[in-house]
């Protein structure tokens, strides 16, 4: 009796500079990471959106049956389960030959810590500039308010908008 109630919808916390929107995305045909990284669309649709200010993130100030984001204005997306935040090709079996590096990222209003999965020699510029993916997955991440450090969000994966990153730091590789 360990069945989980799963559906074609994925619930996540979507952050902009000032707001937290909790809502669900249709992931029947495309995983969330694929939709965020799809260069042919500038928008992301959210259903049942619940809006909070990041200063008081537990207080729901408004709710709407649908909302549309400009993807370039999304700072980050916090997802509870790691696999839900990864691209299909980043999941099953793809961790062979890769390693995890601890990181620290700043984005507007938040500081993010967690791990990034890498393969081969690491070059920060490569991570930030190579490829067409606009969002990078931070695994086992914690996103903390820069202004109110007692406010933080955790998730199995945090998808961070590369264009919103101010500082990107990596811990030394551990043997």
């Amino acid at each position, binding site marked *: *009796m*360990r*069945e*989980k*109630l*799963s*559906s074609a919808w994925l*619930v996540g*916390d979507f952050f902009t500079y000032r707001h937290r929107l*909790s*809502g*669900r995305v249709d992931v029947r045909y495309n995983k969330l990471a694929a939709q965020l990284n799809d260069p042919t669309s500038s928008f992301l649709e959210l259903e*049942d959106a*619940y809006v909070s200010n990041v200063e008081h*993130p*537990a*207080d*729901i100030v408004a*709710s709407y*049956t649908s909302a549309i984001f400009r993807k370039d204005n999304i700072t980050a997306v*916090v997802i*509870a389960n790691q696999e839900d935040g990864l691209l299909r090709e980043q999941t099953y079996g793809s961790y062979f030959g890769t390693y995890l590096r601890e990181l620290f990222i700043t984005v507007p209003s938040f500081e993010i810590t967690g791990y990034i999965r890498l393969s081969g020699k690491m070059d920060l510029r490569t991570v930030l500039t190579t490829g067409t993916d606009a969002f990078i997955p931070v695994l086992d991440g914690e996103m903390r308010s820069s202004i109110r450090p007692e*406010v*933080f*969000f*955790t998730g199995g994966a945090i998808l961070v908008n590369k264009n919103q990153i101010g500082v990107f730091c990596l811990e030394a590789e551990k043997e």
Partner: protein
Amino acid sequence: MAKILVIDDEADLLEMMRLVLQQRGGHQVVLSAEGHDGLAKAMSSPPDLAIIDVMMPGITGYEICRQLRANPDTASISIMILTARAQPMDRDAAIAAGADDYMTKPVIMAELLERVNALLERRTEQPPGLSGTFALMSLRGGVGVTTLAVNLAAALTQTRAETVCLVDLCPSSGHVALHLGLRPEPNWSAIIGTGDASALDAESIATYLLQHSSGLRVLASPFVPLAGQGVSQKAVMAVFNILQQQFSTIVVDAPSTLDGATMAVLEAASALGMVLTAEPPSLQTAIGTLRALSQWSPKLHAIVNQVTPGPQLPAEAIARALKHPVAATIAFDPSQARALAQGTPLALGSSDSPLAQAARSLVQAFGR
């Protein structure tokens, strides 16, 4: 078999809930796919347990929770919040709204059934509500009187929120409101501090009571310490006479003095909780207090608070020194510092914490 109301706008989840709770759990299940409809169903026929989603069109689960707690007919039902908002502050928000438990989606049905049964079990184990006036006091400060008074009152609201009033009688900026995350405005300074009790009635006193989201009513003490002659005994007793008619249970955070007003309240109380810690100065003060209040010895309960592991006087030795039985021993709870910072008493926010359990055992101790 318990009656369980599930309010969630996800049709698939509702159907799964019915299967699990009804067929596997053997409970009677009522479903509602809309927040206002669910609230109306709860009000018209209160269930034993309500499982409520947070994110629903029209009304949030938090608001439903608050409305259920504010209504005398539904104030005591068990409430579980079920939500995809899975962050720590969301859990705190659910508990502050009055929920007993919190679970995140996606739901593992075996865990849900376990948690539901645990909640229902806790409900049947809950001590009956107390009736009367219960004063907690210590003539030595810093032993946790306010913390215990707040948590005792909070524990009592779990059964009969609408009938419990917490009174902060400390004239030197009492901290009851702070523990509850409330602003101490209005407070009793205008009625007790001035001694003008002639025009007091139930209606006028009601305007001075703060309303906590749990349903608890609070008569706060002023933020600015009262200077001068102290509180008026006549006014204090006038207030208590009225409160005792309005509330079946009154918990008093009594000041660290034995002035006329305090003595009058202690005399009127059904039971006194004398709080001490297992250290010599506190013990010495407690011995002196017992002598000063010897006339009320039968209703006086010694409560040893903030007990930490390590070399400390055992309760038996304390009882021997006091020549009075120790009614309760309460372990130091490090999570109290966080609870104070958040303004959510542990008896409401972390019902499994040692202090919350101690508050429930205090209810039983006073009940004896």
